[in-house]
């Protein structure tokens, strides 16, 4: 049975993904053309969600901004998974050994750097850009995936079917890839959704303080930064992008919860 969470989360996420994709071929208005005469218009017929202080169409900017947010968060999750999962698998396969210890200590170390601090450090050195935001958020994702992979894999290594595979002569790496990984895939998908939503929030925060995507690339965080001085004149300029971020993150979180229930019905009973 599909849960309400799964449906609502899926629909919300789908809408944003679709908006981002459509923006490649069509937006209601150009996001680069300024029209000072039409600035700070309230939502209405001409501009569905109104215009900003340069007279740009807010809906169009949100659509293109979705592209930036999704791309940054998605690649950051990819980095976290791509490096974190193999590290976690290796640590579990070599449980208790030097490699395990080294990997986990390194994880603790990365954990000690809050993602924002990593971002600041990277930007201070290489300058602000979307790429550097991706790296910062991605680095922070590595220990998250490494830990969760190691934890889940460790409990699997004690199971009989793994023992059977060892008896059959398979090596640790092959067992990890062929037996462990498929069995923890659900868990990783759910965690991936959660990290994706955290990535969206982190990207918004970084571009708000000017450490993310640079002008003229529209991004949700910078729309809010621009809106800050206008907030008393035209609250909608700040309200709409903010609600957009909330809706996207909420959608992803609901999707994650829904997926967890759908992929592992046992958890549903335990958590309810």
């Amino acid at each position, binding site marked *: 049975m599909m849960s309400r969470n799964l449906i609502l989360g899926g629909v919300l996420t789908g809408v944003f993904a679709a908006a981002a994709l459509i923006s490649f071929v069509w937006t209601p208005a150009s996001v680069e053309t300024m029209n000072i005469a039409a600035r700070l218009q309230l939502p209405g017929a001409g501009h569905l969600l109104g215009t900003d202080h340069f007279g740009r169409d807010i809906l169009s900017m949100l659509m293109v901004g979705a592209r930036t947010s999704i791309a940054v968060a998605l690649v950051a999750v990819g980095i976290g998974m791509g490096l974190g999962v193999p590290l976690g698998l290796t640590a579990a396969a070599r449980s208790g050994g030097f490699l395990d210890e080294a990997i986990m200590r390194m994880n603790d170390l990365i954990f000690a750097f809050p993602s924002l601090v990593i971002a600041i450090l990277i930007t201070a050195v290489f300058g602000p850009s979307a790429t550097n935001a991706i790296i910062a958020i991605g680095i922070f994702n590595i220990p998250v995936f490494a830990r969760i992979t190691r934890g889940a894999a460790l409990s699997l290594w004690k199971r009989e079917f793994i023992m059977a595979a060892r008896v059959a002569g398979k090596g640790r790496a092959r067992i990890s890839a062929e037996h462990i990984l498929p069995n923890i895939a659900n868990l990783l998908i759910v965690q991936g959704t959660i990290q994706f939503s955290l990535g969206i929030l982190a990207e918004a925060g970084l571009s*708000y303080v000017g450490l993310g995507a640079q002008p003229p690339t529209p991004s949700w965080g910078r729309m809010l930064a621009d809106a800050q001085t206008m907030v008393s004149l035209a609250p909608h300029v700040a309200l709409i992008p903010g609600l957009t971020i909330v809706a996207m993150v909420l959608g992803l979180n609901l999707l994650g919860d829904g997926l967890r229930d759908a992929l592992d019905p046992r958890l549903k009973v335990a958590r309810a």
Partner: protein
Amino acid sequence: MLRFVVKRLLSLALSLIVASGVIFLVVEVAPGDPASFMLGINAQPETVAALRAELGLDQSRLARYLQWTGGMLTGDFGTSYTYRTPVAQMIADRLWVSLPLALYALALSTLIAFPAGILAAARRGRPADIGVMGATQLGVAIPNFWFAMMLVLIFAIQLRWFSAGGFPGWDAGFFAALKALTLPAIALALPQAAILARIMRSSLLDILGEDFIRTARAKGLTARQALWRHGVRNALIPVLTIIGLQFAFLLAGAIIIEQVFFLPGLGRLIFQSITQRDLIVVESVVMLLVFAVIMVNFLVDLAYAAVDPRLRLRA
């Protein structure tokens, strides 16, 4: 216990050494020479060289790393390239804003999360629980800087109860300063409160399923008495860990919120230093934040081991 403490102390020292090494190296590879940046493009090579010598930039990397870390141990964080004042003094001034802000936010987050989490667990599956869980779902989805802007819009611009930003300083009086930190603290506390309430709820639910709660009920305690006497107390252990970790993240998270409210805290300092390429300041503030996280982790581990002897053996 002693063995455990020594082991954790060694690992603490190692973490700090590696962390400082990483921070130093990352900042080292930064393109651009601080001395030429400070003097501008028209500077004479001799002037630049003299300034480099004055700032100690002509020494080897290892020497500078040792000087930096050794200095920090004695409270000397070096001299700002831009302001020519001791970095330690600059940080101390800003810490008087950032630290109270983080503590204020932590207190608020705990005050909101505890009752909410306990209520949700006690009324599991009923409207109060669903309401709290719905609110936490929303709480974790709201970007705190946007929430901050909305607070300014409502409470500063519309209602005029608070100022929209700035900080009068503690000299202006305790309550005036606290008032200026109130909206930022609320903005910072909200997402943390949502997370904490969820953890409080699930931790309490775990405990309420234990045999000793059933025994307490069988002894004749009402559900409420069992919840308060046996449930909440036991549920606090994992919750306290999270509170410890949240403090460090609140300190780092304050960086963005300070930007929204124009508060002269560590966040402002770090952004100013980045634009002015005052890397020694960036380096030291980052190290301080990382130090806070590592230290809190260490203390949480110790507290845990003091409470639960099994953990000492495992280490």
